[in-house]
């Protein structure tokens, strides 16, 4: 009896001690591993990017290491999934252990900036340098700059020359919406399929619709304008007449590209990142036409290098050095080639074009592209975009007319 009780007490004590120790070690280990810049040893910097596909031996990781070395520090890079990175950055900001340098998708910059996580160039003394204003504007809110783009991509119109030839369509004749629709009609009449795009109910859907929206001359602050309606009517008619498959309503840009890869489609609206794939299949590319001729402004894609707020403000110096190094012409061209990006500065673009003249349509497209969060829309953009893709979904699936769908969208944004 006595012995048994002793066992109980000892056992309980051991157990309690174990739990306590576990909790302590748990705390301390998570403390060191999750601590970002602020509590890391001096000389060691943290870097987060949305490229989990590149490991430590990749060219991308090596450029970062070189730049860190030239700033006299070491760097610890972590790659996260794009969709997870925003929330991860917000959580890190809340616990004030943000990374020293954060590479994020451009429309997210305004969200993080409004959360107060990012430093402005006034605070971190970063010199922005030679960056085209249309691309930089995603990182500019109330005339404060929150980062620099590492490169840009955008959308254009891929086409399958074999199918166009068979249908008797000359690509040079496609200059506006009317001629594009006429070409789609010819192609479908010849027994092929027209065009693929992505009208899915996520940011991707808005991203793909914007060239048509802007190409009609519509403005994101007025979703129910007649110009906006004409853009949505164009897509709706294409789906109704069978020029575009019904599956566009559910297609991501990747699945829409897979449809194009079947070789049965004449056109595909897709991004710079598919250019290597397209070249392999012998497909060519032209800028997306605007309603009444000329190139439509497509939205810019691509990430921004930002420097999150740190308790120890002396860290900004080295961080700025690393960012400047990463965005220097030579390094950025190397990086942009790896990531299928078009550079954002005139000099770097020229260097890229000299090495690969087939990039010409893309450089042209990037030069007329628009930032989604630009025009000082900032954090208003995500709300507008959500209503926009909802309107597109309603109109294409036939649950509302384009006019009604856009009216409801505008009412929801207020």
């Amino acid at each position, binding site marked *: 009896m006595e012995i048994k009780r002793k066992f*109980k*007490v000892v056992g*309980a*004590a051991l*157990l*309690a001690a174990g*739990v306590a120790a576990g*909790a302590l070690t748990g705390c301390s280990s998570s403390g060191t591993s999750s601590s970002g810049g602020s509590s890391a040893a001096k000389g060691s910097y943290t870097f987060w990017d949305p490229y989990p596909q590149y490991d430590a031996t990749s060219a991308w990781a090596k450029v970062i290491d070189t730049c860190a070395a030239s700033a006299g520090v070491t760097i610890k890079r972590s790659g996260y999934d794009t*969709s997870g990175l*925003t*929330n991860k950055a*917000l959580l890190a*900001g*809340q616990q004030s252990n943000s990374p020293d340098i954060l590479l994020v998708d451009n*429309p*997210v910059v305004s*969200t*993080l900036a*409004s*959360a*107060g*996580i990012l430093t402005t160039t006034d605070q971190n003394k970063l010199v922005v340098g030679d960056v085209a204003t249309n691309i930089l504007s995603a990182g500019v809110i109330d005339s404060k700059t929150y980062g620099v783009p590492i490169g840009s991509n955008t959308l254009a119109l891929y086409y399958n020359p074999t199918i166009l030839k068979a249908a008797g369509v000359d690509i040079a004749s496609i200059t506006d919406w009317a001629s594009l629709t006429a070409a789609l009609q010819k192609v479908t009449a010849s027994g092929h399929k027209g065009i693929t795009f992505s009208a*899915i*109910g*996520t*940011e991707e859907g808005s991203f793909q619709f914007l060239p048509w929206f802007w190409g009609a001359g519509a403005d994101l602050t007025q979703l129910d304008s007649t110009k906006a309606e004409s853009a949505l009517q164009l897509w709706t008619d294409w789906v109704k007449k069978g020029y575009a*498959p*019904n*599956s566009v*309503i*559910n297609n991501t840009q990747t699945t829409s590209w897979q*449809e194009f890869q079947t070789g049965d489609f004449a056109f595909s609206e897709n991004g710079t990142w598919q250019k290597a794939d397209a070249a392999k299949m012998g497909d060519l590319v032209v800028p997306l036409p605007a309603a009444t001729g000329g190139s439509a402004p497509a939205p810019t894609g691509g990430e921004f290098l930002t420097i999150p707020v740190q308790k120890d403000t002396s860290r900004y110096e080295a961080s700025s050095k690393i960012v400047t190094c990463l965005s220097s012409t030579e390094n950025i061209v190397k990086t942009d080639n790896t990531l299928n990006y078009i550079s954002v500065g005139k000099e770097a673009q020229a260097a890229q074009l000299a090495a690969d003249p087939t990039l010409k349509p893309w450089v042209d497209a990037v030069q007329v592209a628009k930032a989604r969060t630009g025009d000082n829309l900032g*954090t208003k*953009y*995500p*709300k507008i*975009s*959500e209503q926009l893709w*909802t309107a597109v*979904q*309603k109109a*294409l*699936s*036939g*649950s*509302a007319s384009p006019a009604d769908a856009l009216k409801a969208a505008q009412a*929801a944004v207020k």
Partner: protein
Amino acid sequence: MTAQLRVSARRMRRRGNWTAWAFIAPVVIYLLVFYAYPLARNVELSVRDYTVRSFIDGSARFVGFANYRAVFANPTFGPALLNTGLFVGVSILFQFSIGLALAVFFVRHFPLSGTLRALFLVPWLLPLLVSGSVWSWMLNSDSGIVNSFLRAVGIGQINWLTSPQWSLTAVLIANIWIGIPFNLVILYSGLQGIPLEVYEAASIDGANGWQKFVQITFPLLRPVSAITILLGLVYTLKVFDLIWIMTRGGPADSSTTFAIWSYRLGFGSLLPDFSPAAAVGNLLIFVALIFGLIYIRTQSRLDPA
């Protein structure tokens, strides 16, 4: 002497209490850290006005039930409620009846019945990402196998995932397919708990198969059925991945359930809207809780012992 004894007895009892506490400490800590805290935090998120800014600096204003009122007034609330109800109700109805039919079928052993039964478990073993993607390929409007079959038999194309009339049906079909094995397994083991003598006695009395099912199998399976249906309810209420992969809740809210809506508010756009998302999530938890209480009530009524 007696006083001394009493004191030591009390001390012992106190020590016994401490020992008891030490033993349950791991469970209590675990529950607090992994259940109570997240739940409390979720409630807190839903009664304050969190923006990305106040999420970081912790200055979110207390707004009481304003987020809930906003959720109720949102035009998505009605469709989401209806969709959640339909999704859960129809899923359970088919999953349970098909699962029960299969369980009754497999309870009589025949050659290869084990292999067949194992094959029926496949939907359950597959990651939801895989099943969801496969279903969305099969139900693709233009190039899906289901539509090419329908066209072959002359029915024509159905826009399963891209028309507001069909999208909920499409995700329902996939979800029923995934849920059948779960019902089959639990009901099958429930059936094996019914003594064979009862059936023998019924046979001697001249009962036919249907009578045996209605008079013996069904009543004796009631406790197992209750737990199957309750677990099914909770699982189905929170189904997210499948719908997200197949339709993203669309087109235009037509397949949006509460789980999808909550995710869309919190993580679906570039600007997270934490507070309404937490409010919708809490409504979901609340509904699940009600079903849990109903289950406990029926359970205690079923066996009064």
